[in-house]
């Protein structure tokens, strides 16, 4: 983290670039200026595929153990210079007590100010699986009530045990809400498939009014869907019983996004269980479709 540019100035520069009429290859070149911080350690384990996702989207990725960040946490600008924060999947502290709880507490107690400032400055964040659980514990998702400049909000939602107890691994189909402010899912859909693998993914809200506000603001970019693409609560299309099929959330700016399924595990067309059939049918994509989530994030960072 030698680069101590403030994120806002970096984005201003990127925004200027984005106004130019760029060819796709230029976008990738400019994307190198987008800096992604992937936090690792304490039992998290999806760092390689998350880094690969952002790298293939053109960004510059730093894998940094959280302990290195916390050591410099006295400096409120410890996250400055990064455009995107990635909260990855895994089992932080074994998911003991509750998934994401111990890791999120550590962030809240020791990095809370830097995180709220990062968000206020327009930084982007992606949380996948354990990372989503962490963002929810931190109150960053759905993040509807926090005022600019305020400390991290209290937790407003929770990811609880799957209705069928235990870790479950399956590919799911997600219905994407095109009307969501989420920048990470722009142009994706109407559905996208990716693997889902977790034991605690059922999303519950603090109360009905909050849920209504989240739904009204279209802060649910992705929902578990059945074969026809319609949101579902039925197992196994919905692996955890999440009401309304809620699979992920974004904040009102659309820049903070978390979801239980793993776009990071669909970077290659051959990750898809039906890749041979897709190839035979001529529908095999040139890259894994999960990559589009990462590309969207990088694009949004470039656009400022």
């Amino acid at each position, binding site marked *: 983290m030698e680069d101590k540019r403030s994120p806002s100035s970096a984005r201003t520069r990127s925004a200027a670039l984005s106004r130019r009429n760029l060819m796709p290859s230029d976008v990738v070149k400019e994307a190198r200026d987008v800096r992604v911080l992937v936090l690792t350690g*304490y039992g998290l384990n999806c760092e390689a595929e998350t880094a690969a996702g952002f790298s293939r989207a053109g960004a510059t990725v730093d894998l940094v153990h959280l302990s290195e960040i916390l050591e410099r946490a006295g400096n409120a600008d410890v996250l400055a210079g990064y455009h995107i924060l990635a909260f990855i999947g895994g089992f932080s*502290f*074994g998911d003991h007590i509750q998934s994401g709880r111990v890791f999120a*507490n550590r962030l809240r107690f020791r990095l809370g100010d830097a995180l709220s400032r990062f968000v206020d400055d327009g930084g982007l964040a992606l949380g996948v699986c354990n990372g989503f659980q962490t963002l929810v514990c931190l109150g960053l998702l759905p993040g509807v009530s926090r005022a600019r400049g305020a400390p991290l909000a209290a937790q407003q939602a*929770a990811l609880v045990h*799957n209705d069928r107890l235990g*870790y479950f691994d399956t590919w799911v189909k997600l219905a994407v809400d095109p009307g969501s402010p989420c920048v990470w899912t722009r142009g994706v859909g109407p559905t996208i498939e990716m693997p889902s693998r977790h034991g605690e993914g059922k999303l519950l809200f603090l109360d009905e009014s909050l849920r209504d506000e989240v739904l009204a603001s279209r802060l649910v970019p992705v929902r578990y869907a059945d074969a026809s693409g319609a949101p579902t609560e039925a197992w196994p299309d919905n692996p955890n019983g999440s009401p309304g099929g809620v699979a992920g959330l974004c904040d009102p700016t659309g820049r903070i996004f978390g979801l239980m399924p793993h776009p990071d*595990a669909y970077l290659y067309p051959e990750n898809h269980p039906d890749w*041979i059939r897709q190839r035979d049918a001529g529908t095999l994509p040139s890259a894994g479709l999960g990559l589009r989530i990462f590309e969207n994030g990088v694009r949004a960072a470039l656009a400022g």
Partner: protein
Amino acid sequence: MPIFRLEIENRPAVPDALATKTAQTLSAWLGLSPARIRTRKVYLCDLDINEAEAQKVLAAIADPVIEVAATGALPDGDSADPPVILTVSFLPGVTDAVGKSVKTACEDALGRTLTGQVYTGTMYLVWGLARADVERAAAEVLHNPLIQRIRIEEPPRTPDLTVPRAGVAQTPRTEVVPLRGLSDEALERLSRERLLALSIPEMHAARAHFEAEGREPTDAELECIAQTWSEHCKHKIFNAPIDYTDPEGRTRRIERGVFKTYVVAATEDVREARALSGIDGDAGDFLVSVFSDNAGVVRFTDDLHLVYKVETHNSPSALDPYGGAMTGIVGVNRDSFGCGLGADLLANVWGYCLGKPNHSGALPKGLMHPRRIREGVHHGVIDGGNQSGIPYMRGFELFDDRFVGKPLVYCGTVAAMPVETAGRPTHEKFTAPGDKIVMIGGRVGKDGIHGATFSSVELNESSPVQAVQIGDPITQKMMFDMLAEARDRGLYSGITDNGAGGLSSSVGEMAEASGGAEVDLARVPLKYPGLAPWEILVSEAQERMTVAVPPDKLEAFLALAARREVEATEIGTFTDSGRLVVWYGEEKACDLPLVFLHGGLPKVVRTARWSPPVRAFASSSDREKALAARPVGELLVSMLAQPNIRSGERYTRHYDHEVKGLAVVKPFVGVCRDIPATATVMRVRHGRDEGVVLGEGIHPHYSDLDTHAMALACADEGVRRVLSAGARIDRMAALDNFCWPDPIKSATTPDGEHKLAQLVRACEGLYEACVAYGLPLISGKDSMKNDATMGGVKISVPPTLLVSVIGQMKDVRRALTLAPRAPGDVVYLLGETDDACGESELSRLLGLTLDGVPRTDPRRFAARYHAFAAAHEAGLLRSAHVLSRGGLAVALSHLVMASELGLSVSLDAVGRGLSPAIALFSETTGRVVLTTRAEDSAALEARLSPHGLVRLGAVEPGVSGRGYLRIRHGGQTLAELGSDALRRAFQEESHAV
């Protein structure tokens, strides 16, 4: 220092999934129907905190959205309708990984380090069951008295604040154990009572050594010798000279033992053949490191090697299925990680041989019901591997009631090793005298004491409970992450796992490299006080590695560990003194010459006599009569529902197959993703297309007829599997895992000589297969005492060999699966079919003892496989699948269910003069069912006709999107089965367990 009890439960409106699952299990297993269950988490904080701090901690760890929490006790509900309350928590000293995380959370919440521990438990509030029923539920489902304690109470209750603190204040000292003048009887008793598992000749050898030194051994020295010389560590049976007598009475001496004569020889012969053929060209030797490290290493790409190891963890899994099996997976991860200077873990595999889950007969007292063992073993390996962030790429279950005594629990790990690290070849350690000995990871407790010697004896009522360890995969994951950083920075010169035998083995083994070691056990961090020096030396407490750190790197190594919150302690120095010297502070506990420790084990010639029991085989007319009574379609449906045939997907979905994002052909394939893959394929690095291919073979039932045929069948199937997925035929390697019943003749094992002969014959078969297929054995494990005697009943496993094959692909996009691709494609069977139904699934389905074990002709099959691989290289194959248990019929069913296409096949050309049922269910080895495009069929036939290619029929469109299997013979349709009918039988959910 007060103890604070925290109770946390879900708010009433929030579902309690653990309670739901518990109620289901109590109902299914015990027929108990509670009206309602609620569960609670209990944390007993035995920490230096006050009431206000306890409240702060509670607020930090309880979920504000879905949970309610209290210090002390939460209300237990309406007093008019009181629940029975069961609390399950750990016994003193048992690993409590959750408690460790709660303590971390407390420290984060309070912003300071704390002393003491947190002890966790689970409360079940049960309504609608009598106290006696809850006691039964606790005994049979909800707790294991070897590691857990329970408390059953009814409201009103006083919050229980007793914590299972472990340890005693005073430290036992090293004791001298006199051997001089002891009779053989006394030596035998000493060996048994201390669980040394040393024989009389071994005790004599030990005594002679100390007599020569003019002194008596210490307890630590005897223990160290016992660990090092254990069957588990020294593979005595595998290395013993054997006098082998065949049924004709001819005797020959296998002087170098079966390991060198067959296992090592197979690998050396393959190495030599490769060198002669020049197959490796400029790439460098394919075999990078074999038999010399914790795992085998083969060449993969210019910058990566592949590492593979498969372990068994049978005895601990019998006592505590969850903890024992979890220890199996986290332990084998340390083996592959600690190979060379350290490898990056890539994939896990598992396989279990278990008693039938619906076992209804009486079980000897002391044994758990197989369904409970099954549940616990799965759960343990799922938690251990998933939390390690490693995808599971293979898994199998195999059932036979001879596994109720000791289940076989196989766990394996593939890793990728950079060819070079910090300028050195990664597969070599370079430990030198003067390097510091650092123990890293978990702390040492009494858990796992005598694991190595315990697994070298049979299981019985007096088996030690402390032999059970419970893994803590997160502590291990944090250690691995830190060690990977240290490796890349070149901060250490050697590393090995602390597994069986604990420090005595790990330091003892590494000391061989430098020529000696000196350790101070007083510096070893303990979980609790009061361990004797010998206990510290041999404890197998988990999540520990021993690392050799050059003195100039020590500060940096320890600093990095501290930053990553990984405990690392310098405990001694590697020397060139030729001795393993162990201190406990000022007191010398152990001083043994390495030459004696590693070379002093006396060799005993073992006797093997091949005298197969005479079996009453069903006559062919009996067989035909049994077959005539059942149409083949009905037989097939029954077959698909057999325990060893059906899907097994139910458990497998709880294993993570996707982490790392590299999987290409996953453990289950097909339209509904419920058909076990022939073999699995994954990328090894992001952005690269080279892949690793995994398959295996295991056929313990064939051992009842002939272990020679059994071993050949296992190796053959492993090879066929990886080739069917598209693996290169020139880059295969295998691991052998032998799990045998005790093969040494004794009062309790009168047929030991035959069992040892079975081992010899299996090794001969394995050797023949490996040489013919060019399949080097790169690592293995032998577990030789898989017997249990409980209540006077002895149950022994059948001789079991698992051959795990690791293959390679240049481009994973050329992988094949078993699923046919399109209507119009032609279906072929490659390989002749003969009447091989001995100990087949058909024989078990019919309840008949049949003769005719599958005979594998590896040289002929090898030519077939070369032609097959070349056909794939030429792009002629569209799908491929092996024929295994259940023969052609089961394989074709897989094809139909996976593709949801129609298959119309004729048996006319399958086998010579075989009845349709035999053609369908014979388990002849060496066969593959494959499909090709119609326009490629002539080219395919030209290549493969000399190798027994039979055109079966064609792929047809399904009916309304549903596949079917039509079987014809002699112009008649014998069966036509829709995929729905096949799947109903095949899916485990259809069967009551």
